[in-house]
């Protein structure tokens, strides 16, 4: 759309955090109705740039201009004022949602849209406008539902509605698909295209190159804070983009042929959890030397299954055996230790919340699972020297980028946090590896690293359960794939016999090939 007017202009934005330059003289512009994809490695400065645009951060140099609502002339935004950005028509969907969980969707959308000290809120009018908006955009949510009861996809729709309700003309989405299923992502991009066609200008950040190529009009790439490319999507290839981001060629590891071994882990008729997240009558057999993928739309019991295998959720019914040892009996929901000692390695889904203790040092985080083992303590007293030494070795072996083993773990980026988790869980040569969404939010390089580690574990003869919503990842790594839907797990079938659309259908609840056609 070469003739469309420019609605947003970032001019020579520079942002420094101390001596570190997160954005280095970045200039970008956006036209009405255009969809721009912003790419870059973890820490490249994408989120920072968008936060400056929205007024959360203040740039050290440079300006942000937005087209005036009436005249259309580019007008400079006062820095550091989110409400000014909102008023000028900039809407932002943050990487971590900014919703009040205890309030309804309607409340979240109306929040701050009326003068604070008015005696009554015009909810009825607001609701009517929203119903109309939902119809036009196809973004439907139950306006009266509490946010805490909504799925991730629904929450995201609320976030977008928040922006549209305020007549946003520029919409920024920070890694919107990181937490969405393929179907949800597809729907999202369809919606975005509709909105763009109506004139909305959109910037989205993503690490998934396929969707970037499929859905954007233009692509901008940041590397180390600098804009290294700003090009039309047409003609861009995945390989070229990956190279632009990383600055060198990226090789993706693939799964070598390997014969599966004996049965390691079996679940029979296993039920656990309650409510929507419960799992029912799950049968599963994991062999050594294989990766078993579990596909499914988030919220269908994966979390409970992961918690069960992590020893955090008691088994309500059925059995759980590892190499003929009955583990189900010993599980009371507080026995992560039992599972670790039995030889389970667990990579939790939310690495910030469940993977590390941010305030403790990297060395302590590396030792946390084995802190009671003789190598870490004697008579209850910690062996600091040994702990530090092993940490230094792990930092080297896993290439954890940090200032040393004494640095607080929270200072690391997501990718490096994941490396801590990998290092400490895989170090003990586990029999079973449970990996839940192991590459969510990670950039190409970090993702490749995680995949390599999982394949290494497989090569050593471990059984890996890979829970993921990313079908590409599942198809590339798994020997067999089973689909989980509404807490029930389908049979695991060899990956070679499956294709994306079959899996997608099963994830949506259409039954397995065996009893074809029946809708759930």
């Amino acid at each position: 759309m070469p003739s469309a007017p420019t609605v947003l202009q970032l001019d020579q934005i520079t942002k420094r955090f101390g001596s570190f330059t997160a954005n280095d003289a970045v200039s970008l512009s956006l036209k009405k109705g255009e969809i721009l994809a912003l790419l870059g490695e973890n820490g490249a400065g994408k989120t920072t740039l968008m936060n400056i645009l929205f007024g959360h951060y203040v740039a050290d140099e440079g300006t942000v201009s937005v087209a005036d609502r009436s005249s259309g002339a580019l007008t400079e935004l006062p820095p550091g004022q989110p409400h000014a950005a909102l008023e000028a028509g900039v809407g932002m969907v943050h990487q971590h949602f900014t919703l009040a969980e205890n309030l309804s969707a309607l409340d979240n959308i109306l929040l701050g849209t009326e003068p604070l000290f008015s005696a009554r809120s015009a909810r009825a009018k607001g609701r009517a406008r929203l119903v109309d908006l939902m119809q036009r955009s196809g973004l439907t949510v139950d306006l009266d539902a509490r946010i805490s009861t909504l799925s991730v996809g629904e929450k995201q729709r609320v976030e977008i509605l928040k922006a549209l309700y305020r007549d946003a003309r520029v919409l920024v989405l920070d890694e919107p698909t990181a937490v969405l299923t393929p179907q949800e992502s597809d729907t999202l991009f369809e919606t975005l295209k509709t909105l763009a066609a109506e004139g909305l200008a959109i910037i989205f950040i993503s690490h998934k190159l396929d969707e970037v190529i499929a859905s954007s009009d233009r692509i901008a790439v940041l590397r180390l804070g600098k804009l290294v490319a700003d090009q039309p999507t047409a003609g861009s290839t995945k390989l070229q983009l990956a190279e632009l981001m990383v600055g060198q060629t990226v090789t993706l590891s693939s799964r070598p042929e390997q014969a599966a071994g004996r049965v390691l882990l079996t679940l029979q008729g296993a039920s656990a959890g309650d409510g929507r997240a419960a799992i029912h009558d799950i049968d599963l057999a994991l062999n050594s030397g294989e990766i078993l993928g579990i596909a499914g739309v988030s919220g269908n019991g994966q979390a409970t299954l992961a918690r069960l295998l992590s020893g955090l959720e008691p088994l309500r019914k059925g059995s759980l055996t590892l190499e003929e040892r009955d583990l189900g009996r010993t599980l009371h929901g507080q026995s992560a230790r039992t599972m670790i000692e039995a030889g389970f390695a667990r990579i939790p889904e939310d690495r910030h919340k469940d993977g590390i203790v941010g305030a403790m040092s990297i060395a302590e985080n590396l030792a946390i699972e084995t802190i009671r083992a003789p190598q870490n303590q004697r008579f209850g007293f910690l062996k600091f020297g040994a702990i530090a030494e092993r940490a230094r070795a792990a930092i080297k072996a896993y290439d954890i980028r940090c200032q040393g083993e004494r640095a607080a773990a929270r200072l690391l980026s997501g990718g490096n946090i994941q490396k801590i988790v990998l290092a400490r869980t895989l170090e003990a040569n586990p029999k079973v590896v449970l990996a839940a969404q192991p590459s969510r939010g990670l950039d190409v390089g970090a993702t490749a690293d995680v995949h390599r580690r999982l394949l290494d574990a497989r090569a050593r003869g471990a059984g890996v359960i890979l829970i993921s919503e990313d079908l590409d990842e599942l198809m590339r790594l798994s020997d067999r794939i089973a689909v989980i839907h509404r807490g029930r797990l389908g049979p695991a079938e060899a990956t070679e016999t499956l294709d994306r659309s079959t899996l997608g259908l099963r994830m949506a609840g259409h039954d397995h090939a065996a009893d074809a056609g029946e809708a759930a």
Partner: protein
Amino acid sequence: MDFLDIFLNANFWAASLRIATPLIFGVIGALVCERAGVLNLGIEGIFTAGAMAGWMAVWLGAGLWGGVAVAALAGAFFGLIHAILTVPLGLSQHVSGIGVTLFATSLSYFVYRTALPDVSSPPRIEPFKPLDIPGLSDLPFIGPALFQQTALTFLALFVVAATAFVLYRTPLGLAIRAVGDNPSAVESQGLSVYGIRIGAVVAGSALMALGGAFLTMSAFDAFFFGMVNGRGWICIALTVFASWRPGKALLGALLFGAFDAFQVRLQTDVGSFIPGQVFLMMPYILSIAALILVARKADYPRALLVPYFRGQR
């Protein structure tokens, strides 16, 4: 026994409402603070400051409503200290609260004693008188039970209704509830997290101080040391008991008042064989029991106790 007699006596209900009044102010004040995400353990001291300042103003000739205003201002002042320490500065809400209690209490006592060094009996003021509402006050039973209270009691009831209205029906209330749940939701909608939190803490503290003022200007007519006697802490418990809802807060305060009134009446009968302390313990034990029952369901303000720093993730 004369259990029934007690409940059938209108004066018992009047006493319950009277005892509950300072608690109503306190619990609503605490609730407003906590809804915005700030625990205010300064309440005990703010009660004392309100009691002292309101009384002192009247004693100096300010008039009763002038005294109420001064009490509210004193509460707002100490609330502002707590708000500044905990909201933009992000200090521990526990410690700041206890610090404010220490500060407000000792300052009140010090000012009182320095202003009145040589009193042998506490100076008295002319306190609020029970309102005589023509028609209503004369109703049998209902009249003496409900309508022979002072203006401050009615103000307390009005405050409950007004707070409920503001919280649930106005944009301001929505912002307060949201900021206590997730401050970044408020910030991303262009509102000021600090502004709303500070405002809520200041307003809530002013309400707390009215609870103190009730003690010296309505329940009694003089200021005493140690007069607040733990009433502030009870309000903190009642807030949780009420699951942060104004209606339930009123109910909780009334329950507490009724229990106290009941135990005072029962003690003259059975006080000789059941230690009085057993009755005094009951409200606390019941509060704990109630907590156990509501704990799982309570939708507490999720951001309570969590300071918010702009730009932090």
